[in-house]
């Protein structure tokens, strides 16, 4: 890969690096047993690092690998993770010799099998040495009150040096110097020379304030045990200020607080990929098979024991079951009232008891029938996965990108209605992975990713839910860009955008109005229609979550109930209207006196067992006429960690209801996901708990 001339350049530069390394190691050798100068250790580390990078760029792998191992050891060394003992110094010196030998061979153009064996051996020894003890968990820097903006720029090494200074109990200072652009490097060198005898310069940070075109400011983070007066003598025009707003432990320093810098959020430790993805990278278990275990490629057609059923007939059956359920509740009610009335009059009471027995028998049979019909409605996801696979294969071919499409979990079964409604959202997500997730091949190479991209579609059962994952190993979402777009489109304010957690930030892409088609090609992410995907899923009582890391890829996780058709619901009444609340989302029901309500930031809240929850008047949300009341029943609904209390007027009992999704033009109604039929044939709306929670928890939603 390198030309003749380039190789010479490489050899020259590599020699320079090795010469410097030799000098530094020599000093280290001489000063055995003494505390090493951190700057020198850092310089040696940087030498190994530079050599590694340089030789890798020129394809000289032997040197690169050895330098890499050395770099690891030296990194551990400068971070205080391993001690500098004789064994380490000796090994480093041997490594230097080896590197010089290898370089000599490279420049001569000869190979060196004899040396190479030695190099491998040395690599192993370095590997062992690099295993050091982990650093103690408690972080002094947190206690010291460091400006988060500054801390976010520090490298691990600089933090380590700062920590060491804190441990030693020396004072921490910020030295600010403003120099002209012409000669700042010389001036800085001079300043450093004056400061070095007095302590340690941990970091040199260029600053834009003041914003003068011809000058540039620097903030030097400096640790010193000397009193202020001594330090000021060395400054010559630079200014001195204490670095932190709180005294370092064991050291008391009085100082004026730092002027506030333009803030950037305090950095959280970069989350590991597998901590944050909804399903983690645990190996995807094969879904538990049903009695018919299908081979991966088998289609339903190859089994002779199946019958094709017209979905309309199934719907008819479901309707019948629905009606039977209604009849059952009617019978229950009759039996209940008959039993009560019966005190003192023998016949009605006995009759009531018999009636109740019959009702129970009916209930058992109905359960069986219901289960049976529901089972018939269950179809394997493979039906839609197969179609998606065919389509993806075509799209991948047409795109010209090199992509592996992995599918699994096709034998997971779901209600046919849900499966059919899934094909659109899944197709949408997959298309976006292909178009915008997977990077062009040269970019993937620059990212050291295999040129072959991966898009995966996986399903698995989890309790009475199904989890479907659509993911890719592409470029991931650009958080900065998401923040920018969200603010531009007025979806959040600048201040709110800074406060958002990573997960919340990513979830902004689901907001309607997030991006137009025109934007999509610029972002290395997605945008078009994701709000539609989310609302479609919500209508199916499903959830969608997103996790993405720049450079690693993006994963969408869809959570769906196994079946929609019949659910247990809590019937409530608000301003005379009846609504059904799916019981699976109801955590608790309490009664609250309006006199006990409080207001926080213009929102009503109430207390239950020490917890304060939002008190949301459903009547107000639905803009229904309100009557003043003294108390309300509060249905506490929850999803994940969030809870809110929906205030209603009356509780009307629980019912098993057959839910019909609202289709066509009624899809757009917010907060309502379907309707059901009651005994008197009245249609009653079923609340969309997920959508309501989201609507009510949004920052802009004020209790009005």
């Amino acid at each position, binding site marked *: 890969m390198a030309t003749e001339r*380039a190789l010479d*350049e*490489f050899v*020259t*530069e590599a020699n320079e690096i090795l010469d410097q390394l030799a000098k530094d190691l020599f000093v280290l050798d001489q000063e055995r047993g003494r505390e090493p100068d951190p700057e020198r250790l850092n310089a040696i580390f*940087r030498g190994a*690092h*530079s050599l*590694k*990078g*340089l030789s*890798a*760029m*020129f*394809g000289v792998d032997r040197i*690169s690998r050895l330098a*890499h191992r050395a770099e690891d050891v030296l990194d551990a060394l400068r971070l205080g993770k391993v001690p500098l003992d004789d064994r380490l110094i000796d090994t480093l010196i041997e490594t230097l010799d080896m590197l010089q030998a290898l370089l000599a061979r490279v420049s001569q153009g000869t190979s060196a099998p004899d040396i190479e064996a030695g190099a491998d051996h040395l690599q192993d020894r370095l590997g062992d040495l690099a295993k050091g003890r982990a650093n103690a968990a408690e972080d002094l820097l947190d206690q010291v009150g460091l400006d988060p903006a500054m801390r*976010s*720029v520090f*490298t*691990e090494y600089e933090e380590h040096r700062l920590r060491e200074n804190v441990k030693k109990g020396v004072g921490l200072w910020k030295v600010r110097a403003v120099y002209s*652009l*012409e000669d*700042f*490097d010389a001036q*800085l060198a001079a300043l450093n020379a004056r400061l070095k005898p007095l302590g340690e310069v941990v*970091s*040199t*940070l*260029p*600053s*834009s304030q003041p*914003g003068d*075109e*011809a000058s*540039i400011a620097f903030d030097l983070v400096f640790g010193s045990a000397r009193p202020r007066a001594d330090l000021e003598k060395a400054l010559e025009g630079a200014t001195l200020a204490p670095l932190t707003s709180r005294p370092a432990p064991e050291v008391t320093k009085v100082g004026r607080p730092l002027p506030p810098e*333009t803030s950037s959020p305090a*950095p959280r430790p*970069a989350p590991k990929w597998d901590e944050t993805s909804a399903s983690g990278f645990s190996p995807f278990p094969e879904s538990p098979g049903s009695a018919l275990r299908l081979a991966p490629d088998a289609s339903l057609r190859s089994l002779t024991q199946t019958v094709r059923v017209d979905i309309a007939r199934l719907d008819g059956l479901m309707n019948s079951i629905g009606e039977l359920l209604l009849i059952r509740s009617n019978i229950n009610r009759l039996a209940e009232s008959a039993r009560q009335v019966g005190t003192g009059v023998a016949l009605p009471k006995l009759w009531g008891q018999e009636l109740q027995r019959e009702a129970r028998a009916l209930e058992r049979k109905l359960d069986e029938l219901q289960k049976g019909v529901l089972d018939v409605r269950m179809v394997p996801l493979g039906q839609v996965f197969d179609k998606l696979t065919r389509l993806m294969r075509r799209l991948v071919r047409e795109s010209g990108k090199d992509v592996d499409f992995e599918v699994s979990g096709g034998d997971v079964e779901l209600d046919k209605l849900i499966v059919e409604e899934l094909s659109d959202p899944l197709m949408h997500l997959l298309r976006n992975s292909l178009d915008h997730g997977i990077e*062009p091949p*040269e*970019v993937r*190479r*620059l*990212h*050291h990713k295999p040129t072959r991209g991966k898009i995966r579609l996986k399903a698995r059962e989890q309790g009475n839910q199904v989890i479907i994952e659509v993911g890719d190993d592409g470029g991931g979402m650009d958080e*900065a860009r998401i923040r920018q777009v969200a603010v531009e489109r007025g979806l959040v304010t600048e201040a709110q955008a800074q406060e958002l957690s990573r997960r919340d930030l990513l979830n902004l892409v689901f907001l309607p109005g997030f991006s137009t088609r025109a934007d999509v090609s610029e972002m290395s992410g997605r945008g078009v229609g994701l709000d539609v995907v989310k609302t479609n899923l919500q209508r199916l009582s499903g959830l969608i979550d997103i996790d993405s890391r*720049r*450079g690693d890829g993006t994963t969408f996780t869809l959570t769906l109930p196994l079946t929609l058709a019949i659910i247990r619901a809590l019937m409530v009444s608000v301003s005379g209207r009846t609504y059904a609340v799916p019981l699976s989302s109801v955590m608790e029901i309490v009664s609250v006196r309006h006199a006990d309500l409080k207001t926080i930031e213009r929102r009503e809240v109430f207390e239950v067992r020490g917890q304060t929850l939002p008190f949301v008047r459903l009547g107000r949300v639905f803009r229904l006429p309100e009557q003043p009341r003294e108390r309300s029943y509060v249905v506490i609904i929850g999803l994940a960690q969030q809870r809110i209390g929906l205030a209603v007027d009356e509780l009307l009992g629980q019912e098993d209801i057959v839910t019909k999704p609202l289709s066509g033009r009624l899809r757009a109604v917010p907060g309502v996901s379907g309707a059901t039929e009651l005994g008197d044939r009245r249609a009653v709306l079923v609340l969309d708990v997920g959508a309501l929670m989201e609507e009510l928890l949004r920052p802009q939603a004020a209790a009005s």
Partner: protein
Amino acid sequence: MSVHKVLIVEDSRATRELLAAALGELDGVEVHLAISGFEALKVLPRHRFALIITDINMPDINGLELINFVKKNPHYKETPLFVVTTEGRPQDRDRGLQLGAAEYVVKPFEPADISALVKRYLKLG
């Protein structure tokens, strides 16, 4: 046709030459070189750069500090940056992106690939 000025900040001379050669072949690109962070600070006010490609590990100020400086400076903050990291240090990549780099590149890389990336990014030809 307007010219796009690209600044390469890299302390390894040989690597610098490789990059300059590769990018120099692109039509409409004028390559500028800085051998250290300090050099970059000096050069910044002199030209309006369409793109800055910076290594991380450099003697005086490191690449992350340079990115931070550029992104926080009202005069330069619109300038996109690519951060060059090395294999096995995803934390550098994450930090670089967090501080505002538009793209990241992992060493070692083929100069032709970075050429293609720059060409696509600057929408050349």
